[in-house]
């Protein structure tokens, strides 16, 4: 009897070797001019109204490529894609909502290097802004193409601003703080009824990621170590927020934000006039038009630090990305789909019009068919601004961003006291954590 468990254990150890993944692929690229055919799996994360727009785009692709059959699966998130690819399955083409996966998917080979296809088909990468090119590749390995982009700016409620005597949005952080105070309305007991601006950095889209471009604060050094503790802009950014949080009272803000509707529901506080100014993505224009047509609002670039007035107009950009799985049995057809979705002007313009995200190519941005009003135009301009930035891709995904966010939240609540030593300690912890995933 004692031998049996041993045999089982030995079998288990052997199985271990069999059950670990291998995502190395040979990038065999067909010669130019050969038409791809066959069927491919396409996973994306959209649902409902937006998924319908994707279906329409796929139908157009199939019309243009009658020999390719695309099976679409909607509502798939990155964790599912990761698990599917690791078990040797998964889609030929994956569409992700987040650039967080680029570092890992590129460096591990989970998504194929697209360079051979790009070179063969002479795809001009200069049609994408430099920042967009940077968030779709990692260590010179281009494993993703940009699908549509999300650009962040400032939304302001024109009615509330007019009541306080303002006709234009703030351009500097000092102006933002002053206006926030003047626009805030409190009940006699001190409870916040309307906040001019919520300076917490874990509220809706108000996160360090989206706001630090206003200070031009850097995340990582060139050798992928934390730059947070050594870049003085971080301390400036923290001080600005802490001053405003203290003006409101941290507990007052917590109580106020806890009573607001969910960000993604029609009860979003900006829709309800509970917040006068708010950081958000370009997609909020469509939500407001759809769910709160009575709100008179305007859009503007993020305010910048007082001594960086020349950078006004820049902001944060991130985007949806598409790549070909290492397991793809039909990479040629998969590339045909990606090339169509990410570089074909008609397709990009159609999708941008349908789901109100920012198109990524120069031709699509200039297309007369792109439906642009003055509110949406603000985001197109931010997108094209040379100083617009993003969080650099990393093999540990969003780890460094979230560690910074955790520290910042603790600082604003008063739990983390001394920012000078706190940020230095954060650098050490981020470097150790990133080393773990290298």
């Amino acid at each position, binding site marked *: 009897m004692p031998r*049996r*468990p041993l045999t*089982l*254990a030995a*079998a*288990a*150890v052997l*199985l*271990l070797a069999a*059950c*670990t*993944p*291998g*995502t190395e692929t040979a990038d065999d690229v067909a010669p130019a001019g050969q038409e791809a055919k066959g069927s491919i799996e396409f996973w994306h*994360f959209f649902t409902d109204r937006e998924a319908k727009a994707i279906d329409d785009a796929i139908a157009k692709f199939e019309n243009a490529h009658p020999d390719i059959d695309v099976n679409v699966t909607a509502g798939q*998130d*990155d*964790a599912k894609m*990761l*698990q599917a*690819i*690791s078990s040797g399955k998964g889609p030929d083409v994956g569409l992700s*909502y*987040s650039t967080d996966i680029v570092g*890992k*998917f590129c460096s*591990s*080979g*989970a998504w194929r290097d697209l360079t051979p296809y790009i070179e063969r088909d002479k795809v001009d990468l200069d049609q994408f802004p430099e920042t967009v090119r940077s968030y779709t590749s990692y260590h010179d390995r281009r494993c993703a193409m940009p699908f549509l982009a999300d650009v962040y700016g400032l939304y302001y409620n024109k009615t509330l601003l007019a009541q306080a005597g303002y006709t234009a949005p703030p351009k500097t952080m000092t102006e933002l703080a002053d206006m926030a105070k003047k626009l805030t309305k409190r009940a006699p007991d001190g409870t916040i009824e309307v906040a001019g601006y919520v300076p917490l950095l*874990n*509220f*809706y889209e108000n996160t360090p990621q989206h706001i630090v471009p206003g200070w031009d604060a850097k995340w990582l050094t060139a050798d992928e170590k934390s730059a947070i503790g050594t870049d003085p802009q971080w301390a400036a950014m923290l001080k600005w927020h802490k001053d405003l949080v203290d003006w409101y009272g941290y*507990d007052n803000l*917590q*109580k106020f*934000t*806890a*009573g*607001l*509707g*969910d*960000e*993604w529901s029609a009860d979003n506080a900006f829709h309800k006039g509970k917040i006068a100014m708010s950081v958000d993505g370009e997609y909020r224009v469509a939500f407001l038009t759809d769910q709160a047509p009575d709100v008179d609002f305007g859009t503007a670039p993020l305010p910048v630090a007082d001594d960086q007035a020349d950078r006004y107009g820049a902001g944060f950009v991130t985007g949806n990305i598409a790549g070909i799985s290492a397991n793809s049995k039909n990479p040629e057809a998969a590339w045909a789909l990606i090339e169509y979705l990410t570089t074909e002007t008609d397709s990009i313009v159609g999708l941008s019009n349908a789901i109100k995200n920012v198109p990524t190519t120069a031709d699509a941005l200039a297309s007369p068919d792109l439906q642009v009003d003055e509110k949406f135009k603000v985001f197109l301009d931010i997108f094209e601004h040379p100083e617009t930035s993003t969080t650099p891709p990393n*093999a*540990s*995904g*969003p*780890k460094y961003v*979230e*560690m910074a966010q*955790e520290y910042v*939240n*603790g600082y604003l*609540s008063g*739990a983390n006291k001394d920012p000078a030593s706190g940020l230095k300690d954060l650098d050490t*912890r981020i470097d*150790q*954590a990133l080393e*773990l*995933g290298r």
Partner: protein
Amino acid sequence: MAPALIGIGVFFLYPLLAAVYFSFTRFDLLTVPEWVGLRNYTYLFTQDSVAGKAALNTLWFVVILVPARMLAALLTSMLLVSLKRGGGFFRTIFYLPALAPPVAATIAFVFLFNPATGPVNEVLSWFGVDGPLWFDSPDWSKPSLVLLGTWAVGDLMVIFLAALLDVPKPLYEAASIDGANAWQRFVHITLPSLSPVLMFAAVTGVIQTLQYFTQAAVAASVASGTATTGGGISSTFGYPENSTLTYPLHLYVSGFRYYDMGYANALAVVLFLVAFAVTLVLLRRFRAFTGGAR
């Protein structure tokens, strides 16, 4: 015996050995694991401050939530036993919360305890009490989850109820004749009779709480106000200020959000060892408590 061994081998032994092996590797699910020796354990015990915080949070739940649930279930079942009539009705009422899906129940609790719009603070304000921030406060988020846990004790309650009804009546009668008061009858008759069931509740409660995940994840996500964000639910785990980040949540985030699957396995191995040790200690204490009779 053979089919059982296959089951144990495939569903217990293999995953266990795999977890131990992966815990010594750098593994991201996508590439072949690379042996790194004790690297993951060094990081866990000397560098990862979040793991320490997560472990303390989980320990907090083990120390507070498990006894709180046992106490609530015991009191409820004793109340039901003492009822002269309507026992069936109240038994159903008290059991019902256990049937509520944890996700739905948690969402409902976060809404009920919303500091600005929830009815709980509204009622408290009638009595001049300025209610806390509940799920939005790092000090109150864990106690709020304990309230949720003690609300849904129907599972434990029915077990305690059955055990209470099993206590031989003559023991109580004899004790009463000897002049024992209610407290003495509880300590000397009820508790010893219930001890196997209490032990069962303690052991399973500790093991379940070491794996406490769903309620903490959902409460954090809903309270943070970005419940359906496209960035994936795991970005809100721990809200507010990592006060609800339990050890298994940290494990999940490490593995599936940061791709440190080798490290996540190290976390899992440590969790397994702790659960195993705690169970052993509890069983030993229990044997000592009952004089080794069981």
